[in-house]
């Protein structure tokens, strides 16, 4: 019955719609839309008859045709990346040429303000950063996070290691939590997707953490790495609660909204990018070079020194074992292909990716294949459907790195291995390392660590214009979809490896299977009202968002394998671990936006109510309000386009309790064959609630010199209350710790964005941009004694949370008379500055991006290890550092807490667009455009940090304790030669 009703409704709508359109057709207008500077055609521009629903889209040659009512009309023309233009067309005019000014600084781009609402950047009351495809694709990138580095004021994006395949943290506006989750909400085409980081359980080999289960020191990849950067049209980043409130209870770390590319009408247009390149190590640590046997005897015994240092004059040989390991430079390739086209009823975008990034160490690398199909279908005048589908496969081989207690991770072996021992294979046989438990060259030759991920994203969005009148518009937008991935981790450490027999169980195999399913439903109703009196526009939006997540992690660890066998079944010692994390979240929201005073004033207020199965009370709604205002002072000094906007915004968001915070799990075991369940050490809080962030931000956006110079300045102050804290209990309660909400921290900072069009002529375009960000945090209230949240104990430097201090402070020795450690550093940068330049001259383009982080200390334990074993490349200085570190009267942890400042040339690209004649000659006449690009990423790296890289994090993504360098995988730089073809 309901089906019939629906069909009837659909038929009715279609009939009404076609009738309406038919009645309006009076005459035909055709024309061409071109770039105001270069007169190149603008494809995909929307040309609409003002005050009607009639519109058309330009084709690849920039041409359009539409049917317009009789009489004079105004055509509104807009295209992404260009400023809107309204052109009058007289009653007898049938052709028109429109030239659009480039919207260099995206002033007219619409930016999200809610789940289904957006306003133009020039009205936007919050500082939302927008990164467009052009900015993302300046230089090829393995994963999307690295493509965002240096492009968002207020974001600190750092790679956790140099291993191929990603693993990076996006931190927006400083620390927002101490023990809670650290990931922003990632939304792709309306779908909340998983950014889980699933550990491989390399811990089974490294024993980095006690207990033998998967650990956050396993160098995991957070799964946003799966996305194909070439598919992304734009990324909008809601950095704090004032902008992110409409995402509510999980949005305290911000929201990253990713929109993928969509089809444009016209004949099929193909784009092909083929890249060839290489990854090379950009920095790694070497070890001490020994002169003669006397020098060697300061490292090892006299007799061994004599054996190894047997060259003339008792000189020692010097083998570059370390350099040998990081000396791979396989060919890296990438093929991106896309097709777009369609009619004004049906548009499609189809893309495919095949890439292989070669690693810098043997048997490491990253393979990815992805295919996407985005479809837009008009189902009548009032209905439309958008379908987005993607399937991705990736395979990363990441080797072994990071902390280790079993002598397996290379940089825990090299500090004990002198350069006078030769670890290279002889006839394929790797020598035993007599100085440590493994030979890293052998380990990398035979150890397999593969992460194989299949991921499918599918979403459908149905739009329905229920009311479309001159004064009001009501539309419903419903998005449903799924995000599913299956990650398989295979680690195989054959029994022949030098370190394998040491636990008495030679041969280790790990099989990890993790699946995650996110189901999304997002329902929006948006009503726009323009009263007859004019002057204002009121947009009311309301809706709900439901997300169901189901994570299932299973890890099987087998030890003691027969030679050649790698099936876990063949292991004689088997450990199995499973973790399930089901979760359901529901949010209901409503907001009102009023645009008044000739689009100069924007007032917004809204509220979101969230409930989540992670909360102690899963049926309780937590409220997150927001309010914002902006006002534009336009036509400054009589110059059209010059304006200043003042803005202020206030909002709240939450950070959900961690999975399991509400539970008080019992331990289990057996005794005499009887299963028993006993009290566990941690008491959950059955009343646990989300952390709450309250943020106020304000600032101004200015566009002067006829829009050639833009400036955005924002200051923010966010306080987080109801922090998820852990209280140490009196052990007579039977438990060690209790989870609860309490305390308060603050983070305030300033963001600046500058853009200047130095030149904008048909021959030369030169645009420079810069961002600045600085923030400071403070613990305002702490109902528990000061505690450490990371590190390897006070003496080696630890992150300590203490009332009145910076959240990211690092403490260490000396310890004062009252037992308090001294502050020896702070991981928070003093400031960050980025600078980009895009210069095009005729057919040449040169783009670059510099990323400067000033300050922000890193605990350099890799150097500590080299120093402690007397094997540092600067041994004399290393001995001095050790003496200061271990001085019994005044021990100085500070020598290993080092300045992590860096200046990196993140991106550099030089491209040349071939003349049409050459293009035709080379590729045939069907090819309409061709360009050749030389590009590189992280080509220049300037830092005083003496460890591997100041970006690394031994413990992966961390709220506070990330800047710890313990034997990481070294960073790399990449170079690519690319050919782009359009046909």
């Amino acid at each position: 019955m309901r089906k019939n009703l629906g069909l009837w409704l659909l038929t009715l709508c279609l009939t009404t719609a076609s009738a309406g359109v038919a009645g309006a057709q009076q005459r035909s207008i055709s024309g061409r839309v071109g770039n105001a500077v270069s007169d190149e055609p603008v494809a995909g521009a929307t040309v609409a008859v003002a005050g009607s629903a009639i519109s058309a889209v330009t084709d690849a040659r920039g041409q359009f045709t539409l049917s317009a009512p009789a009489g004079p009309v105004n055509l509104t023309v807009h295209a992404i990346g260009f400023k809107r233009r309204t052109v009058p067309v007289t009653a007898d005019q049938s052709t028109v040429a429109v030239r659009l000014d480039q919207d260099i600084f995206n002033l007219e781009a619409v930016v999200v303000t809610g789940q289904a609402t957006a306003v133009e950047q020039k009205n936007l009351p919050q500082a939302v950063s927008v990164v467009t495809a052009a900015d993302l694709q300046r230089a090829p990138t393995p994963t999307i996070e690295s493509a965002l580095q240096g492009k968002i004021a207020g974001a600190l994006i750092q790679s956790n290691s140099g291993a191929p395949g990603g693993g990076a943290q996006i931190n927006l506006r400083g620390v927002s939590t101490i023990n809670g989750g650290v990931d922003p909400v990632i939304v792709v085409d309306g779908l909340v997707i998983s950014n889980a980081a699933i550990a491989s359980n390399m811990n089974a080999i490294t024993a980095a953490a006690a207990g033998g289960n998967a650990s956050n020191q396993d160098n995991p990849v957070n799964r946003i790495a799966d996305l194909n950067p070439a598919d992304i049209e734009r990324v909008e980043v809601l950095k704090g609660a004032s902008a992110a409130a409409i995402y509510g209870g999980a949005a305290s770390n911000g929201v990253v909204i990713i929109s993928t590319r969509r089809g444009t009408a016209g004949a099929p247009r193909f784009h092909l990018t083929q890249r060839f390149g290489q990854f090379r190590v950009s920095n790694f640590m070497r070890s001490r070079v020994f002169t003669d046997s006397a020098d060697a005897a300061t490292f090892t015994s006299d007799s061994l020194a004599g054996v190894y240092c047997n060259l003339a004059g008792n000189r020692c040989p010097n083998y570059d074992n370390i350099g040998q390991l990081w000396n791979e430079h396989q060919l890296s390739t990438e093929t991106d292909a896309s097709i777009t086209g369609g009619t004004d009823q049906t548009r499609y975008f189809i893309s495919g990716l095949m890439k292989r990034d070669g690693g810098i160490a043997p048997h490491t690398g990253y393979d990815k294949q992805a295919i996407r199909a985005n479809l837009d279908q008009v189902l009548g005048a009032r209905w439309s459907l958008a379908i987005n589908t993607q399937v991705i496969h990736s395979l990363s081989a990441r080797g072994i790195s990071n902390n280790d207690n079993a002598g397996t991770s290379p940089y825990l072996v090299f500090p004990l291995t002198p350069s006078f021992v030769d670890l290279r294979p002889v006839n394929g046989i790797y020598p035993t390392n007599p100085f440590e438990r493994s030979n890293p060259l052998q380990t990398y030759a035979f150890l397999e660590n593969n992460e194989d991920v299949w991921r499918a994203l599918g979403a459908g969005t149905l739009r329905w214009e229920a009311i479309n009148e001159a004064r009001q518009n009501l539309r419903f937008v419903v998005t449903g979809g799924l995000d599913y991935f299956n990650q398989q981790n295979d680690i195989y450490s054959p029994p022949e490896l030098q370190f394998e027999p040491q636990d008495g169980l030679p041969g280790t195999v790990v099989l990890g299977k993790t699946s995650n399913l996110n189901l999304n439903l997002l329902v929006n109703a948006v009503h726009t009202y323009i009263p007859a009196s004019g002057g204002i526009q009121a947009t009311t939006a309301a809706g709900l968002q439901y997300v169901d997540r189901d994570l299932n992690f299973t890890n099987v660890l087998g030890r003691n394998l027969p030679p050649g066998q790698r099936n876990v079944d063949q292991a004689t010692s088997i450990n199995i671990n499973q973790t399930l994390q089901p979760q359901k979240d529901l949010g209901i929201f409503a907001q009102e936006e009023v645009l008044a005073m000739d689009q100069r004033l924007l007032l917004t207020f809204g509220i979101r109510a969230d409930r989540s199965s992670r909360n102690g009370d899963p049926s309780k709604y937590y409220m997150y309000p927001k309010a914002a205002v902006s006002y534009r002072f336009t036509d400054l000094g009589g110059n059209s386009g010059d304006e200043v906007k003042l803005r202020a915004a206030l909002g709240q968001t939450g950070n959900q309790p961690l999975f399991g915070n509400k539970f008080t799990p019992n331990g289990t075991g057996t005794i005499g064959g009887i299963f028993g369940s006993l009290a566990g050490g941690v008491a959950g809080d059955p009343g646990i609630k989300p952390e709450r962030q309250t943020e106020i931000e304000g600032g101004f956006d200015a566009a002067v010199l006829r829009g050639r110079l833009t400036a955005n300045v924002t200051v923010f102050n966010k306080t987080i209350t109801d922090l998820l804290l852990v209280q140490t209990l009196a052990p007579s309660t039977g438990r060690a710790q209790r989870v609860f909400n309490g305390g308060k921290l603050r983070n305030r900072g300033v963001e600046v964005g500058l853009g200047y069009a130095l030149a904008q002529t048909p021959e030369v375009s030169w645009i420079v941009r810069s961002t600045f960000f600085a923030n400071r945090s403070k613990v305002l209230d702490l109902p528990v004694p000061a505690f450490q949240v990371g590190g390897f104990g006070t003496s080696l430097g630890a992150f300590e949370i203490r009332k009145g201090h910076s959240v990211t402070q690092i403490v260490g020795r000396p310890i004062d008379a009252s037992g308090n450690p001294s502050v020896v550093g702070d991981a928070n940068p003093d400031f960050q500055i980025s600078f980009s330049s895009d210069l095009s001259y005729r057919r040449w383009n040169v783009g670059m991006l510099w990323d400067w982080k000033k300050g922000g200390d890193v605990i350099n334990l890799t150097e500590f290890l080299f120093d402690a074993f007397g094997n540092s490349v600067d041994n004399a200085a290393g001995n001095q550092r050790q003496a200061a570190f271990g001085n019994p009267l005044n021990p100085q942890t500070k020598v290993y807490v080092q300045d992590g400042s860096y200046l990196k040339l993140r991106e550099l690209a030089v491209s040349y667009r071939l003349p049409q004649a050459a293009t035709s000659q080379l590729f045939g006449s069907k090819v309409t455009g061709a360009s050749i690009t030389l590009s590189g990423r992280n080509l220049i790296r300037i830092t005083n940090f003496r460890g591997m890289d100041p970006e690394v994090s031994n413990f992966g993504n961390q709220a506070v304790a990330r800047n710890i360098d313990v034997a990481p995988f070294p960073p790399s730089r990449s170079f690519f030669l690319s050919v782009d073809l359009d046909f």
Partner: protein
Amino acid sequence: MKQTTLLVTVAALVAGACDFNITDPNNPTKIGPNPSRAAVQSAVAGILLAARSDAADWNLDAGILGREAYRFDGSDPRFTDELLAGPLDPGGGAFGGDHWSEHYAAILTTNDLLNVIGTATALTAAEQNATRGFGETLQAYSFLMVLMAHTDKPAHNGDSIPVDVNQPVTAPPAPLVRNDSAYAFVSALLDTANNHLTAGGAAFPFSLPSGFSGFDTPTSFRRFNRALKARVEVYRGSLGCGNPCYTAALTALGGSFVDTAGTATLNNGVFFNYSTNPGDAVNPLFQNPQTGENYVHPSIGANVESKPVSGVDDRYTAKVVSRPSNTTDGLTSALGWIRYPAASSPIVIIRNEELILLRAEANNALGNPLPAANDINYIRVKSGGLAAIAGLGGQTQAQILTELLKQRVYSLLYEGHRWFDVRRTGTLNTLPIDRAGDQRFSTLPVPLAERQARGP
């Protein structure tokens, strides 16, 4: 109309997904109201698991503190410095601050069961009582173990341990009570348990591991309860209570399984089992006696008595072997442990040999030297293969006590007794000192977290 359709559809979708209650999919939670028999069984085994978790650590640490053992551990020097030279660190959970939290976790596990057992409709009233009696007895054992580690005899009237701990986790910490009150509490708890067991019918509503065989019905389990009661009363007696407690000890022994008949087995008693089965633990005190980190204190070998014809004390040869000499941190030993010869060797909770010696101690204190001497000589002959000491019953009370304590050392070696025996009997200074600066500790400190939770 269209809106209505849409809204109805959406509402239906959301309503279908609206039950957000999830239970912990990864771990069990504590036993809930109206527990099934299976839930009671899991809780009972959980109590034993929790109580067992400190047994081996206690025997080792008390062995080091009481100069029965050394541990030369390359990765942890605290076994040779903190435990012998001090200072005992109340903040270090593994050493000075140890032997507290594990037993309180066992006490919490017991309370979780006792708090709901009255609601168990699957159990008869008698079965509920039997379960109570079991839980209270094991709880008393855990309290007693904490007390053994944290009783400082000279300060016997001072604060010692909290006992009123059956509180919500958010409640203020239970107050520390005086030592004598804590012992009285344990004694009374054992009596309560005994009464519940008496009303506990013929069988427990759960199975017990083989370490409880012979004590696995409410009636037979009462003999274990009374044995613990006897131990508590002898301890109280030696700590200042005197004759009333020693008398109570003899009464309790009458209900226990003390046995010196010809068929008596000194090893009869109650044990914690270990095994290599999945989920189970192996006995951590089982080591290769020639290569393990744990050594026998040389004074144990130096002071061992010879048997009448040839050889030394059978108890010694059953527990100690020679091994290559090792010197670490200025300590030397050439003796290894074979007290726990297998990964599945059980650890004693209480056994007949101790009960006989408790009876001797109570009789000696009460002025009955002859029965005391008989029991001591019985142990010398039966357990050690030594000659009986003629005229022992005619010696002074102090002389008999000295002989008794020596027999306790060899009978109960590596079972966690000697350090507390010398503390409670005022003979701490009989412990040998190996290095200048080493200390004889009179108690473990109350853990730092326990103090801090009560504020500055």
